[in-house]
């Protein structure tokens, strides 16, 4: 199977803005899924609400585009009622970490056998650019006109703490690493969480002096700090450069999981 075979071509063109990173994330996810040899008939994509959550509508499988924040709870029902199905969830930072925060930590705690791909563009994109729980402090949005004054969630670390069996973070720049991470997630029994920092030139970059897509991608590339390097710096007692975020595999373990195929 090719990645192209998994697209609902009758739904194109898609609604994503020019320069949006979500298409990259969908491509990487489908590359990982096809690499697994999964069948379209046995695979279900689930999502909540927002830009990220429109993704299943472009994929030729059974799919649930649900209510805001609730994707993981819906996906839990699918997987627990029929463990033979492969379940992949697309979500965003607002969907997952704000309104869906409780479902997120409990899905990780239960370690339900599914793979969650979070497109973290650090903004509510579809509603027009309001501040989300991952909008960086000081960043401009329509609801933080004087700069965001709130500390942010580190979604990947949250998933580690809550109990997910596999957690990684990459960016829409790191397409090969991202595809490998999603593949590792699909292979790991239990809940896999892959956070993808992605660019939103329309509603984030435009207000934060990163109007050009290339500037946003360059910012992600230059501020991504490999987790091994971060740990080395810490061990050596050296300072972590300002504004950096870690990428790489944060955890891979085998806590007891639910919904694993019998």
């Amino acid at each position, binding site marked *: 199977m090719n990645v192209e075979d998994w697209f609902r071509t009758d*739904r194109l063109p898609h609604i994503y803005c020019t320069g949006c990173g979500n298409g990259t994330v969908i491509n990487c996810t489908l590359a990982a899924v096809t690499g697994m040899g999964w069948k379209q008939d046995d695979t*279900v994509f689930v999502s909540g609400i927002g830009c990220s959550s429109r993704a299943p509508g472009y994929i030729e499988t059974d799919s*649930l585009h*649900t209510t805001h924040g*609730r994707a993981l709870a*819906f996906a839990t*029902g699918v997987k627990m009622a029929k463990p033979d199905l492969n379940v992949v969830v697309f979500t965003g930072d607002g969907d997952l970490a704000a309104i869906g925060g409780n479902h997120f930590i*409990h899905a990780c705690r239960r370690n339900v056998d599914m793979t969650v791909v979070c497109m973290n563009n650090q903004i509510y994109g579809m509603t027009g650019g309001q501040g989300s729980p991952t909008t960086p402090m000081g960043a401009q949005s329509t609801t933080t006109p004087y700069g965001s004054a709130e500390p942010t969630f580190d979604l990947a670390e949250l998933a580690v703490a809550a109990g997910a069996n596999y957690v990684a973070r990459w960016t829409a720049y790191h397409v090969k690493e991202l595809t490998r991470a999603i593949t590792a997630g699909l292979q790991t029994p239990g809940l896999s969480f892959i956070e993808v920092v992605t660019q939103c030139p329309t509603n984030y970059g435009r207000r934060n002096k990163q109007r050009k897509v290339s500037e946003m991608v360059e910012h992600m590339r230059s501020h991504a700090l490999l987790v091994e390097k971060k740990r080395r710096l810490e061990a050596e007692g050296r300072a972590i450069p300002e504004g950096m975020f870690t990428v790489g595999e944060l955890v891979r373990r085998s806590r007891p999981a639910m919904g694993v195929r019998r």
Partner: protein
Amino acid sequence: MSKVEFMQGNTACAEGALAAGCRYFGGYPITPSTEVAEHMARKLPKVGGTFISMEDEIGSIASVIGAAWTGARAMTATSGPGFSLMMENIGYAVMTETPLVVVNIQRGGPSTGQPTRAAQGDMMQCRFGSHGDYSTIAITPNSVQEMFDLTAKAFNLADRYRVPVFLMSDEIIGHMREKIVIPDSVETVSRRPLGDGRLPFAADPDGIPGFAPFGTGRHVHVTGLTHNERGYPDTTDAEAHDVLVRRLMRKVESARREMADYEVTNPDAEFVFVTYGPPSRTVQQLMHDLPDENIGHLRLKVVWPFPEFALKEFADAKVFLMPELNMGQIAREVERHVDQKVVMLPKIGGELHTPAELAAALEAVR
């Protein structure tokens, strides 16, 4: 061989669900419904089903919808505050035509109210609680036997019409213990399968589409957005929205006669009690104590869609009396359909009306 048992209403509800083939329960503990979940937790694993205690009622109904799309008969049980939390996803189930059963063991409200006392205060919420226009089905048992029978029936109605069906019980019936006859098997209606070459949201002539569960190769896209017959979003076309929402309402409303389930006593009476749920038992006691053919009784087992034609069975009625454990929620629905006087007999606080109270109300209108 059917068997006779002495059982609590909530347990009978769970047994009715199991007999009907329910194999998924997602719930969250809330008084006075919790025994339904507890019994499902004990029994479901033994029949190959799944019980999961979710993080809240929003997650519970969400997981039930997900399970229903795999083809499973799925249910949750809750009470007023939890029911309120479920409302957004109940609208989603309506819009996506997901068959499932929500049991609401009603308690006193608003808010946390009276967790351990009975009420019928959610009757309008179950009809209108979610946003937008829709129609759905509400069933009101008045005995432990009916907790079993009508729960099983709720699954059949959900699958037949592809809507969430509400079993609107209450603390009195949920916690009461009574004799119950459990049959060997119950009648079950299957979801109509999606025909070959048919689109997943293209309705058959009765307004209901065939169902293709996940994993059967039909690649159904399910969305709460206004969608076309293929299931794809179509959110700005006024006609697409109009056609979809009118069909969702019509498929339930047009079947009100085949769904109707009620009992008529003394159809020639002039003074007619209209009840649903436990107040019907007080009326039955009153009619036992005061045998009088001029006192009639209409007992509804299905309240929504409202069977207004049942009121017409009392051709000589002068007054309809409505004892309800709320401030008159269904009395207003009755008023909409009759020319006669409708007397509200609201009672809140957790106690059932006494026969003496209803006798006094009767005297006052004679």
